């Protein structure tokens, strides 16, 4: 009969239990460390969008030209330019504008003819950056100072703009303006809540991204008293889509393929 040789057995039961116990504790600690490591840490939570922010899959705007008059449009322009510290340069060659007025033949070239209603022929249209779905300005920007946000807004980062004006050349709507000089002194009453722009940067309408972040619709829409609708194009229940289902809407220069997202009812 074979007997267990005490010298060949390197581990007894007590030693074995001790090692397994300690290993289990070490393993658990390590596992917990991993959980800590992978859990959303402080860094991610430090910056968050505001809770009241308006979000959408695709922002778009609808302008009802039957409801808007040149006078009410001018009121919208004044409000927009005041809250965004847009200088009134005066000289049309150097002017900076976020929203402005344009005759039908210039806003919708090719669609005009001699026998249009007088209202459309006479009245000037309310135009701004179209926040195109296929933005040529973004494609040409060499510094990514202008880019398309997830919700479709064409944003402008003045911190990165080098003033090459490629975007201005690329935009078929003339929606962008260049600060040829320091125009800050031309701003009559400055809005202390919004920055101004320095010499050498391009600027344009930003669909009031700073207001959307605080849960407010664009200033021009608010000021237009129902003549303009702002909403989510991807939400079939939005007011914008409800109107667009019933009414025929047109866009500026759609044949250029930029897919503008400001719609007009004439």
């Amino acid at each position, binding site marked *: 009969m074979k007997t267990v040789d005490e010298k060949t057995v390197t581990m007894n039961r007590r030693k074995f239990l001790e090692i397994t116990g300690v290993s289990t504790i070490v393993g658990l600690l390590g596992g917990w460390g991993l959980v800590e490591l992978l859990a959303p840490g402080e860094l991610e939570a*430090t*910056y968050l969008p*505001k809770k009241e922010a308006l979000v959408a899959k695709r922002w778009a705007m609808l302008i009802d030209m039957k409801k808007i008059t040149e006078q009410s449009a001018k009121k919208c322009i004044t409000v927009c330019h005041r809250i965004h510290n847009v200088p009134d340069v005066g000289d049309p060659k150097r002017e900076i504008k976020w929203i402005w007025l344009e005759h039908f033949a210039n806003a919708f070239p090719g669609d005009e003819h001699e026998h249009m209603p007088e209202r459309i022929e006479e009245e000037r249209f309310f135009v701004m950056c179209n926040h195109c779905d296929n933005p040529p300005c973004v494609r040409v920007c060499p510094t990514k100072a202008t880019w398309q*946000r997830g919700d479709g807004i064409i944003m402008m*980062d*003045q911190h990165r703009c080098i003033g090459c004006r490629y975007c201005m050349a690329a935009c078929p709507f003339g929606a962008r303006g260049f600060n040829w000089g320091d125009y800050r002194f031309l701003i009559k009453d*400055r809005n*202390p809540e919004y*920055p101004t722009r320095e010499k050498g940067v391009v600027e344009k309408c930003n669909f009031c991204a700073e207001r959307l*972040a605080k849960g407010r619709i664009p200033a021009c829409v608010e000021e237009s008293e129902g003549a303009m609708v702002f909403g989510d194009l991807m939400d079939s229940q939005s007011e914008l889509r409800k109107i667009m289902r019933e009414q025929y809407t047109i866009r500026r220069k759609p044949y250029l393929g930029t897919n503008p997202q400001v719609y007009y009812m004439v």
Partner: protein
Amino acid sequence: MPEEKKEIINSLKDTGFYKPGKIYDPGYIIAGIVIFIILAALPFLYNAGKAAKMPEPKLDTPEILQLSEAERVCVLPKQEMRENHMVLLNEWRDQVVREGNREYTGYTGKKYTVSLQNTCMECHSNYDEFCNECHRYTVQTPVCWNCHLQKPKEWAR
């Protein structure tokens, strides 16, 4: 010394124009050296004993004074803000403009709107005595103010 070199030196000595160890026109040379030393030392002499005043950024704006002692904290501890406020401001800029994140949780857990103009300058409304105090001392000219407005002095305009 090789023989050839010795010969050359000797021939030069013979001409009478080469005198080893002699300074030519010592008056002009010494006067020139003295003038140079004085000119070079002038800025140091001028500023001797006049150490530039240590910057003292003022924290006594009405907005800060009306806060209670417990509320009187910045988004990060004082030392961290002193050393790295420019890094934080760049981070804030990118988060707002690029990511659309406009809410920042400070180290005390308090929530802040991410904005130089509307949050920083709300309390630190004394641009010249606060920001500029150290920037002058360290000869920094940050470009922030080329666009952003300094409250409230410019506000009044």
